[in-house]
């Protein structure tokens, strides 16, 4: 068997793929956080809970309504996004004039409520969600076995991230959005409905989390705590990337997933903390983050 640095290629590439998949989730989630933070100035602590909700909505659609994975992929982000819009209208919109630490506290409370409700209803053991038939099986590559579904997750998340980036950077809508981030009052004076923008932005950011949840459902078992742990890692990703740029959060997300995968191969004990260690190193060298502007 061929080895690289004393590690079987099969294992190495397997872990790299796993890392890439984790990275896909980090990227989508930190992208959503970046968009919401950019415009609303709110650190959405509920992001992890809404990601979990996306996975649960997929599961519910299958179990109660009989709609499969592909339906869920379209519908769950809409459901989660709509839920987000309600949250924004009813609760978050009241906080814009306050210090943004209150946004963090409010969304933290929301995360507790959402997770608690799902835990009451479904317990913590986790529910299975099957890989859709079209994507089962895999490809036998010369150096590893590539499960189709995992390849799909990477492709889908990359596509969504790039599409989002294009919309924000290259379209008129995106231009309004970026302008509103810089100076909401001025943009409003030009006749742009900024409050509507805020609501839709929150809805979209949250829908991204829901989308990630559906992608995750067949890989991880669907359970109420799935968002609680990933959100803290995503916060570290955000600190490392620096929230200034959209593309920054995507690149950092994927890169850190890969680093985590590599650590699992060479020094498994550190795999849970490697991202935090990198965060510390980045903070020492470049406090604004890799892609960040100084605040």
């Amino acid at each position: 068997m061929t080895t690289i640095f004393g590690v079987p290629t099969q294992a190495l590439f397997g872990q790299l793929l796993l890392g890439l998949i984790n990275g896909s989730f980090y990227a989508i989630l930190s992208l959503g956080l970046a968009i919401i933070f950019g415009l609303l100035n709110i650190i959405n602590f509920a992001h992890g809970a809404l990601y979990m909700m996306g996975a649960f909505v997929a599961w519910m659609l299958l179990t109660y309504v009989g709609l499969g994975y592909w339906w869920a992929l379209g519908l769950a982000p809409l459901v989660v996004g709509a839920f987000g819009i309600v949250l924004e209208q009813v609760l978050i919109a009241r906080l814009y004039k306050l210090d943004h630490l209150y946004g963090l506290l409010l969304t933290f409370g929301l995360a507790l409520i959402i997770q608690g409700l799902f835990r009451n209803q479904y317990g913590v053991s986790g529910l299975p969600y099957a890989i859709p038939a079209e994507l089962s099986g895999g490809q036998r590559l010369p150096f590893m076995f590539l499960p189709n579904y995992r390849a799909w997750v990477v492709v889908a998340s990359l596509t969504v991230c790039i599409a989002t980036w294009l919309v924000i950077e290259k379209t008129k809508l995106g231009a309004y959005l970026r302008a509103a981030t810089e100076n909401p009052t001025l943009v409003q004076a030009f006749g742009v409905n900024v409050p509507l923008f805020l609501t839709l932005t929150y809805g979209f950011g949250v829908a991204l989390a829901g989308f990630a949840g559906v992608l995750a459902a067949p890989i991880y078992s669907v359970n109420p705590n799935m968002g609680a742990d990933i959100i803290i890692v995503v916060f570290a990703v955000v600190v490392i990337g620096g929230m200034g740029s959209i593309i920054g959060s995507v690149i950092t997300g994927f890169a850190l997933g890969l680093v985590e995968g590599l650590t699992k191969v060479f020094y498994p004990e550190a795999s849970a903390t490697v991202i935090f260690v990198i965060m510390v190193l980045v903070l020492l060298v470049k406090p604004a983050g890799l892609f960040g502007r100084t605040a």
Partner: protein
Amino acid sequence: MADTAAIDAAPIAAALPTSRDDKALHRLIFVGIAVLLIVAPLILYPVYLMKVLCFALFALAFNLLLGYGGLLSFGHAAYFGMASYLCAYTAKHLGFTPEVAILAGTATAALLGLVFGALAIRRQGIYFSMITLALAQMAYFFALQAKFTGGEDGIQAVPRGALFGVISLADDRAMYAVVAVIFLAGMLLIYRIIHSPFGQVLKAIRDNEPRAISLGYRASQYKLAVFVLSATLAGLAGSTKAIVFQLASLTDVHWAMSGEVVLMTLVGGMGTVFGPIVGALVIVTMETYLAQFGAWVTIIQGCVFVLCVLLFREGIVGLIARMIRRPL
């Protein structure tokens, strides 16, 4: 507005200068608390009271950082929990007497606070919060994987031992007396810090950091100092809790604990001297009496969070302070 300038509940306390009358009022409240501490165990279960006191000290330490430094740490469980592990370990395996074990735990928290604080104060506002949270998560994974912490089991059956090797703490009443003294000392120390020149500078930095810097204060040194003080006192609370409950476990170092202490401070009143005590009392009582409802406790806590942020930002004591127009 400066990024760290904070939390607008705090200025209520800050806007009203502490006059001589107010100091007399505070002294009266301290005496009241001391009397309550003596009377309470006659009526209430001492173990419950000790839990309240440990968390009240924890919340006071946290509020020193948030209310007076304007820094929202979301990782205070790290200092509370790691101190509790070290205290439990030294008491159980190295045979330290309780007071030395508590000091060992407290020193651990101070050291950890120095390292984490030095990193975290490099960024401001919500970045600061996220960094403290991420660092605390590192401490959590460390506690989960390290040999001496006992992983999922934690460190159980920690001996309470004998104070100074003489007074046995096995009896709840003796233990209670020690906890009450530690709590009172911690509270007075924090009061002293807040009302010292150091505390005044802290408030200036909290309200307008660039201005404080332009006046010649080294803001980051002050912030680091208050961070370490807060972590140390949180560690004192965690160590004491380990001795009282004879247990150090992952719960104490998990980020949910960090959230809980934020909640206590928020409910009681950020930036008030006495708020965190009331907050801890409310939250611990709620948890004790709602424990039978399982996951509903989390949901209720979440609702309290949301309601406090939306309607009740001053907290209980903050509200009272505004009504009587006196800083509390």
